[in-house]
């Protein structure tokens, strides 16, 4: 549905994205993940024909974004990052206007507005001026606008930014519902969000794809730390722990007589049972023993930190 080949965009001499390639199947819901300034918005803007790439190609639903821009634009529903809306109009007027731009006739517009008003809970404020709406309401109007023409592809740039927790949950739920009928590409810098809504995540940092796969696949790559809280003689415990099979590094911090050990382990090893036996054999007390995280969050932080380091090295050399 969306095919991106070697996409590069330069602003003057600053390279926003370089050599991006990915492919999104019909019906997939894909999260585009990266820290601020990674090139997410740039990529989405190229896909929605807002601006052209410096080199490389991209196509949506089989249409080239550069040569068949109008066709691409008519199959895409796009929610830009800051949800810019026309403040002077009422919600219904705005949707009606957008429907006209999309070439929907009077009846089709009426039906479409009713449909998106239901989908995005616009009912309460559909006759209010947009300038009076809260950020969350505007976000929903923007989403409604993106859905008006029942597009094949939905592109959402940071769809939950600025929403309150209830709205975030509702929006995520809505996006998952939408994924049943539409191909969805959404960007986010919140990992949890992508983990919760997407089948697949593409992580970009510094304008390059650094990882791609389902949240579970990405997590599998992670080697989490082991946390153990033990009370007893500090140095002795530490020495014993570091001799356990599979343990590569032990860090400790002490708090009220309890030592909290952060244990790095070799890949695939799970020495929790050995640690428990060790503690028991020595007659120490144990109040916590768990595998830490394995969240996408850590993965993300690590990957982007690595990126920053490479960049720093490049700059120095």
């Amino acid at each position, binding site marked *: 549905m969306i095919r991106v080949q070697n996409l590069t965009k330069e602003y003057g001499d600053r390279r926003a994205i370089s050599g991006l390639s990915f492919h999104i199947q019909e019906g997939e819901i894909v999260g585009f993940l990266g820290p601020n300034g990674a090139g997410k918005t740039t990529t989405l803007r190229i896909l929605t024909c*807002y601006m052209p790439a410096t080199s490389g190609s991209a196509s949506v639903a089989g249409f080239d974004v550069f040569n068949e821009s109008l066709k691409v634009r008519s199959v895409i529903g796009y929610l830009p990052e800051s949800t810019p809306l026309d403040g002077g109009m009422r919600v219904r007027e705005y949707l009606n206007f*957008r429907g*006209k731009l999309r*070439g929907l006739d009077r009846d089709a517009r009426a039906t479409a507005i009713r449909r998106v008003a239901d989908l995005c809970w616009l009912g309460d404020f559909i006759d209010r001026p947009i300038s009076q709406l809260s950020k969350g309401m505007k976000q929903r109007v923007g989403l409604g*606008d993106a859905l008006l023409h029942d597009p094949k592809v939905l592109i959402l740039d940071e769809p939950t930014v600025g929403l309150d927790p209830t709205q975030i949950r509702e929006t995520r739920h809505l996006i998952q519902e939408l994924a049943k009928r539409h191909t969805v590409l959404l960007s986010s810098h919140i990992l949890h969000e992508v983990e919760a809504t997407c089948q697949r995540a593409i992580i970009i940092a510094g304008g390059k794809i650094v990882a791609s796969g389902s949240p579970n696949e990405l997590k599998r790559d992670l080697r989490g730390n082991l946390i153990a809280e033990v009370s007893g003689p500090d140095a002795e415990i530490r020495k014993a722990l570091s001799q356990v099979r599979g343990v590569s590094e032990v860090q400790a911090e002490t708090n009220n007589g309890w030592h909290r050990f952060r244990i790095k382990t070799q890949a695939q090893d799970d020495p929790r049972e050995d640690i428990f036996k060790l503690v028991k054999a020595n007659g120490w007390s144990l109040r916590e023993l768990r595998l830490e995280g394995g969240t996408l969050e850590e993965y993300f932080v690590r990957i982007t930190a690595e990126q920053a380091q490479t960049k720093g090295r490049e700059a120095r050399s």
Partner: protein
Amino acid sequence: MINRVTALTQRELAASFFSPVAYIVAAVFLVATGYLFMTYTLVPGEEATLRPLLVYMAQILIFAIPLLTMRTLADEFATGTIETLMTAPVTDTEVVLSKFLGAMVFYVALLLTTILHVFILYRYGASGFGVIFWGYVGMLLLGALYVSVGVFASALTRHQLIAAIIATGILAVLTLGVQGLSILRGGAWRSVLGYVDVLRHFEDFSKGIVDSRAIIFFLSFTAFFLFLSVKVLESRRWR
């Protein structure tokens, strides 16, 4: 194409009537034209003609029209609505054309209020109908040129005030500046400057003289500035 331009023009017009700037400009314009009508046309013993009014109006509009058009594209850039607009299946030409038409409709509405002066004039026995009719055709063509310059200036920047200043600057050069220069210069320069002298072309209309060269001049310059606006809008994507 037509449907989209209509929808966009309607929105543009609604935005004009929504904005306080348009009302302020309209009010100042009406006061000024009323005053000029009183002082230059309604003078006992003088010829009852709209000519001085139209010529002064052409000069007032150098400042008034940029204030009406400054919002058109600059505001889209400033608020970011350009992104939702340009990612809808709408061409750059359609956008520019509807901005132009929206401002033109507002301008024509403004112009129509001065028809009141024509009625007053007729009560006191006016010059021929033809002179007044062609005078207004001239105003229409002049307005179209001014509006196209205004839209062009608005495409250049996201700041409305800068757009207004640029438009007024361009218009001042094309009218007063060119007139001033052509007095100073002689020979070939004079005829070149004479050709781009907007007010000289306009004065023919206000006298009731219909010169096809003047019509072509106004239409081609309007088209030229609209074309430039489309190009500027396209070029924004490449930055």
